[in-house]
């Protein structure tokens, strides 16, 4: 009997040691690699291209495209999931393979001061360099292009499609175009030659050098300024505020038309003091004439325990922005709200009677207010 007990105890001890071993090994892997979604990638494919902006370091390849600055080992992907390293080179695996391609009204992006009612051929490739808890498109932004069903739409084919459907613009949107940078850049060059404008719907989380190169081919950008609080950026979006502010300044410097979207999430980004600070910064940095769209939040992805934003809160944000000196302020995701209309900043008269994606009346003529003849900032022709 004693022998049996002894054996059982030994067995127990070995089991416990084994279990601890497995546990510690797993824990070690977890601690060493704090980005559990960095999966190994096994192959290059037709939609792989040499990546731009990276450098070799002693511990791997450092991506210099966005401020995450991922150091990527062989056969591994960066945080954005579509920059991979193979055989001593970095590749983008998001070139010519959008998983979403639709024709949208330009107002849907939203762009309110850029060719009103123009059609926009909109594409997005899987992947994102942030991890917002409220992502609307998480099923494409939080996965790799290897995991989505994709179209085969190389830059020349994409431009042809846009022409075929008489789209005046191509919008790089839905997920995060910074992560399919090479595709955006090559397509933009071709589109510009064909007289099609390039629109960038982005989180603005990009490094200076690649942005300056791309800005030369961009016509408009709508940047999601998710908050003006760095702590919120870190906890809500897994990013930082400062690079986004820098992006806004560089785009402005490079004469890219900029509109800003600020999503008001209850308890996260609806603090009026922070909104006031944000607007004051925009004014101080020469961005007072950039339209600001305050958008209503509805529960999405992981952030689905919150209510939608009260309309009164959004109206307060608009008022705060106007008082701070922002010239054009709009409300998004609240159908038929009066703040959908454009009022001349100079004379205060309604110059664009907008309803949804339709324009009922447009009194912007040759880029000026029909009533007071003051220029209205934007791209009108």
């Amino acid at each position, binding site marked *: 009997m004693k022998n049996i007990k002894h054996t*059982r105890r030994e067995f*127990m001890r070995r*089991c*416990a040691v084994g*279990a*601890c071993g*497995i*546990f510690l090994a*797993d*824990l070690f892997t*977890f601690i060493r690699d704090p980005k*559990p*979604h960095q999966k190994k990638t096994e192959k290059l494919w037709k939609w792989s291209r040499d990546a731009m902006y990276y450098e070799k370091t002693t511990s791997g390849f450092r991506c210099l495209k966005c401020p995450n600055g991922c150091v990527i080992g062989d056969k591994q992907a960066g945080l954005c999931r579509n920059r991979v390293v193979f055989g001593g080179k970095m590749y983008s695996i998001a070139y010519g393979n959008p*998983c*979403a391609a*639709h*024709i*949208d*009204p330009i107002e849907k992006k939203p762009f309110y001061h850029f060719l009103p009612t123009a059609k926009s051929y909109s594409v*997005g490739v899987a992947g994102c360099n942030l991890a917002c*808890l409220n992502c*609307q*498109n*998480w*099923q*494409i932004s*939080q*996965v790799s292009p290897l*995991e*989505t*069903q994709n179209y085969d739409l190389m830059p020349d084919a994409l431009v042809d499609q846009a022409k075929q459907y008489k789209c005046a613009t191509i919008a790089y949107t*839905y997920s995060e175009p910074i992560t399919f940078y090479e595709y955006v850049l090559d397509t933009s060059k071709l589109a510009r030659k064909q007289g099609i404008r390039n629109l960038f719907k982005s989180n603005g989380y990009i490094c200076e050098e690649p942005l300056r190169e791309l800005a030369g081919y961009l016509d408009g950008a709508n940047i999601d300024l998710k908050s003006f609080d760095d702590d919120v950026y870190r*906890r*809500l979006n897994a990013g930082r505020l400062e690079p986004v502010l820098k992006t806004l300044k560089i785009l402005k410097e490079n004469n890219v038309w900029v509109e800003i979207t600020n999503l008001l*999430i*209850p*308890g*996260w980004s609806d603090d009026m003091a922070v909104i006031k600070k944000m607007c004051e910064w925009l004014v101080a940095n020469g961005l007072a004439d950039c339209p600001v769209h305050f958008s209503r939040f*509805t*529960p999405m*992805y*992981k*952030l*689905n*325990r*919150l*209510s*939608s934003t*009260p*309309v*009164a*809160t959004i109206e*307060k944000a608009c008022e705060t922005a106007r008082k701070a000196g922002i010239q054009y302020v709009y409300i998004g*995701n609240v*159908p*038929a709200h009066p703040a959908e209309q454009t009022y001349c900043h100079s004379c205060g008269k309604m110059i664009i009677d907008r*309803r*949804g*994606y*339709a324009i009922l009346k447009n009194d912007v003529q040759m880029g000026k207010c029909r009533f007071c003849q003051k220029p209205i900032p934007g791209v009108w022709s």
Partner: protein
Amino acid sequence: MGALRTQENRAFAERRWTVIAFQLGMIGIVGQIVVIRELMILFSGNELVIGITMANWMILTAVGSIAGRFAVRSFASEKKWIGLMTLLNLLPSLTVIGMHWVKIRWLPYGVDPGIDDIMILSLVILFPFCFLSGFVFVIGCAVVFEKCKTNLTGLIYSWEAAGSAFAGILFNVILIYFLPSIRLLAVLFIVNGILLLWIISSAFRRRFLGITAVFQIAAAVVLLGRDWDRILREYALGGQKVIYYRDTPYGNLTVTEQDGQRNYYENDIWIGSGDDVQQNEETVHFAMIQHPYPRRVLAIGGSVRGLAAELLKYEQAEIDYAEINPGWLKDTAFMHASLFSPRINIIPIEPRRFVRETECFYDVVIINLPEPTTAALNRFYTHEFIGELKRRTDEKSVIVFGLTSSADYLSGEKRKAHSVITRTVSGFFRRTLILPGVKDYLLASDSPLAADAASRVEKKIKDTKYVNTFYIQDDWLQRRSEYIHSMMDWSVPVNHDFRPLAYFDQIRLWLSSADYRAWIYILTAAVILALIIMNFDPVSFGLLMAGWTGATVEVLLLIAFQILFANVYFMMGLLITVFMAGLAVGSRFMMESARFRGSGGFAGLQMLLGAASVLSVAAVTFLAVWMPAQAVIYAVIIFLMMVIAVLSGMMFTVSTRLSETAVVKSASGLYGMDLIGSGAGVMVMTILIYPLWGLWASAGILFLMNGLCALLVFVYSKRSRDEKH
């Protein structure tokens, strides 16, 4: 601590101990029901949560009971036992108050917990209470044995179960109607406090009585002095002003106010905010314009969002309005103004029951519910329900479901989820159409359906804010509709009440949005395995299997209740109480009876338990098809629950007799094995086997496992007898 000297002393002490065991049962059952209900609210109301939390509950209690074995020397005095009971009495209230604080510390504000979070948080939240209750049970057995030198584990077990049954009926069936969670626990604390003081006053010095009394009174004042239930709701909802909260048989309802907007929550999940123009217009008009003259309309869900206001724009329409939680339609204080129209007929009963019983025929049926993220919601997307609806419609009738929007891309998981529902609906209606919007609206009819919704709405209704050609371009709508339709997989199986594939798809979709931490599961499995090995012998393994079967069938019957009536939130109290009563009856019966005493009897009971689990599943399936009066179904399920519990209770008592080890070791080992089996069973069967293979396969596996176990016990005992000879 010698044996008690006189027969009178022993009788008096035994009475005292049975009262304490009875109290232990009371605290256990009320704490379990209230804490699990609160955890369901905390973790989004998914039935998977019941499985995980009950499993963790049992495992932690087992850990406590096994730890008790090692702490007997330090704690085996009656005074300490009573001291621990006093602390245990307070823990359910503290657990409920503390759980919201723990969650807010662990998760970012407003984030829906993933499966890892549920696992970790439930372990952390339940640990103090569960550990201590297991610990106290074993200490109690040790105290009793030290005093009278007899194995009274069976007695303690049966009185504990009796306390559970009594408190279950008083608190979880009667008082729960009148009192919110913390108030209920405060009453429990006071009742137990008085009993503890009586025990102390009868057997101990005044100083001990004084200290305990001061502690009890101070705690009672704190618990009753503030409206903790409201405070907790406000805390959990980020400081919003709570203007209404109420528990109903179907869940907890809360209404808050924030910057002039009313927000409505069910089990802390936001279900709407006042007038939701976009969704209301799409839901109503996409369906209504498909019918040439919609006169009779049935709407299910969305009343708090103001959906009725849109329906009333059709002047000829008479509307029957039902809610999955009829509580939303009972209190006029926060009902939407449109619901007071004479053209609206409020349905005061559960909608599925209404559809089964009504004799009306409907031109349009609007199902405005969240997707089948729970078994309760899945009931509105099944072959059985759509069949019932079909009988209440005609050739031109239209039904609409709102599925989560595929936005700009339809992922693999979402495609499958959409396909299962579309395929189920198309089994009854010749035509289906999906119109994308805030949601993907799945329309079905036997007549043609039109995708040019915006222009058709403009012709019929003038004052829409969103569904018009300004916001929706029909060619765009048509293109996207065709795209989604082309992505449907028509080879997927159909969604059923008891084979809820759509619900499982939603769980997969939910899991795909969360990160996994494999170490949590490895660690849990390692702990379970270690505990099993520590206590291994065929009898305790048989008891483990009994716990496994009993708890699994218990949870499967709870899920069955949810599928049939959606009121598990309320019925959980009654069913768990019945289960505990059954354990008490079984255990008590075996203490008196001469039958089933040996290992052959144990093996026989094990076989019976396996057969009963198959019988339970057969009965539930039969009831779901036959659908007799609600009272008959209640009675049958309660009877089945009782049978399973009685058999489990009988096995526990037989096993204490068969066990050859010391009392403390047997109490902690057997009690622990019973609980580990229960925890592991619930975890494996309801989270893995049932979703993968369904109800019948689960029952089959239970039957086989019990059969094998019975064989093992029989062979082992025969060999032991041969060795002795």
